[in-house]
């Protein structure tokens, strides 16, 4: 898995503008309910944001109506 080349990545979720999952891996698969909150996070002008959770940092990037959340 290419994403594992960065061993910091614990999981991912990609979701669309309706909040429906496109893919999920690792811890992302067990945190689908995060989508509701993540979809409301304000993104910067380039489409990026970071959210600190309990023990995980979530990196967000949105482009073309698809948001990718990467958990590290």
């Amino acid at each position, binding site marked *: 898995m290419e994403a594992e080349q960065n061993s*910091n990545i614990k999981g*991912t979720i*990609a979701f669309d503008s309706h909040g429906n999952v496109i893919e999920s891996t690792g811890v992302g698969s067990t945190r689908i309910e995060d989508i509701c909150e993540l979809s409301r996070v304000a993104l910067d002008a380039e489409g990026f944001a970071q959210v600190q959770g309990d023990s995980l940092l979530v990196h967000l990037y949105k*482009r073309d109506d698809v948001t990718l959340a990467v958990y590290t």
Partner: protein
Amino acid sequence: TTPDSTKISKEQLKRLHSRILDEISSQSQVDKPGPLTVPF
């Protein structure tokens, strides 16, 4: 401050997003074997 070991760069994030969408796009392609209608 967040330790650097937990971060991934914006570029990495952008690249991963692109790769995912590119893969989905290419794998969503459906081959059409020929015309789906015939005149009668």
